[in-house]
Structures are given as structure tokens and as C-alpha cells.
């Protein structure tokens, strides 16, 4: 069981690392939001699943399941709020044609 937990934790951390890398590499605001807000979800899911497996069935793992559910609701809502705020302020979005802008 500890091996499975380790594998899940390490994969989750690598995924989160790659998505932070994407935050730096992406051009423009809207593309960065993709990397920052959402690709994290899978990494977080894997890490929480690993911790649940490690604890076995207990009150703590039920709480971790709840965190998982809240991540699922809060993540897209926050991303959507950010994107909508930017859209209303008229933040320009990066297009392939204007490569040189960034």
C-alpha cells in the first residue's frame, strides 16, 4: 500500500510541477489561466487519493474525500471568475498570428 501511495504522490507532484512550468511558459493571460487553474486538478486528485489510500478507511480519509469534492467545485468557479473579470476589463487575448507581441 505504501508503494502505491508513493507512486501516486510522486506522479501528482510531477504533474503540479509541469503545470507550474506551463504557467511560466504560456503566453498571455487566458492561456496562463489554463495552466494555473485547471491542469492542477489531476495532480491534486492524485495526491489526495494517495493520502486516502495511506490512511485507509477512517474519519481522516472521509475528510480528504470532502476536500476532493470541494476542489472539484471551487477550482472551475475561481478560474471562471478570474476569466470573466479579465474579459470584462477587456484584457486582450494572445493569438498565434501576433507571435512577436509576447
Amino acid at each position, binding site marked *: 500500500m505504501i508503494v502505491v501511495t508513493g507512486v501516486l504522490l510522486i506522479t501528482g507532484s510531477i504533474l503540479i510541477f509541469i503545470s507550474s512550468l506551463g504557467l511560466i511558459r504560456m*503566453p498571455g493571460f487566458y492561456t496562463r489561466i489554463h495552466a494555473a487553474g485547471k491542469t492542477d486538478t489531476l495532480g491534486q486528485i492524485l495526491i489526495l487519493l494517495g493520502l486516502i489510500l495511506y490512511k485507509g478507511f477512517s474519519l481522516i480519509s472521509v475528510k480528504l474525500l470532502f476536500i476532493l469534492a470541494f476542489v472539484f467545485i471551487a477550482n472551475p468557479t475561481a478560474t471562471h471568475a478570474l476569466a470573466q473579470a479579465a474579459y470584462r476589463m477587456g484584457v486582450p487575448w494572445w493569438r498565434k498570428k501576433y507571435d512577436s507581441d509576447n
Partner: protein
Amino acid sequence: MRFFATLVILLGYWFLLSGEFTPILIVLAIISSIIVSSLTKDLFFPEKVNIKLIFKIFLYVPWLFWQIVLANIEVFKILIKPKLDIDPSMVEFEPMVKSDIGITLLANSITLTPGTVTIFADRDHFFVHALGPQFAKGLSGGEMEQKILEIEKCL
């Protein structure tokens, strides 16, 4: 009815988080749950609780989960490549779903699957920002929207 449903959920949540069952805590839990649920009884539930709808949404979640995993892998492939291969576009379409719960579900599902972010959601317009044409393809009238239409039928 709505009052009791809220009360039961709040009480269950309290005991789940505290995990302790001393008399003082139980009394406090009951008192505070009654106060909160009398204030918010019309917030959590619509006029009538629809068991079939809740069941359908529970069936939808595993499918969405799988879509998230698939789409995540797609985005990671893009991020790992030394040269960024993205072609962002803004997609506008009119949603087939018309109810509040359907629009919320669709907007959040689109945002949750990597590669697409809902920027504006409303009964007539959906603005979606997509990382590339392969993500924008199945947005309007795709599998996701069909599933949500199925859920909406139970309303």
C-alpha cells in the same frame, strides 16, 4: 421539509468534521444547526427535492472525472514539448441547455476539463477560450452537452 433536509446535512457535516461526541458538543451542534438551517433553508434546496436529478448528477460525475483525466494528459503533452504548440481561439455558441442547473453544470464542466475555460455563460451565449482547435471541437452539441441535456430532462 427543506428545513429538515438542511438540518440533517449540517448536523452530519458537523459530526464528520469534529469526530467527537461529548454532550456539550452535541447540544452545541444541534442548536447551531437549527439556527443556520432556519436562516438558509431556501438556499440549498429548490422548492422540491428531486431524487432522480441528484442520482443522474451522481452518474455524471465519474464520466466527467474520466474526461478530466484524458484532457489533462492532452494538455501535459503540449506543456512538455520544447516548442509551445498552441493556437488559442475564442469560441462563441448558443447552449442547448436552458435551465439554471444545466448552464451551471455545463459551464463548470467546460472549465474543469483542461484546454477550455468558460469566460462568459448565459442562457443565449457561451464564450469559451480554447487552447487549440482540438479542444474547441466537441464543445457545442458535443457528448458533454448531450449528457447534461439528459440530466435536464428530469427537472
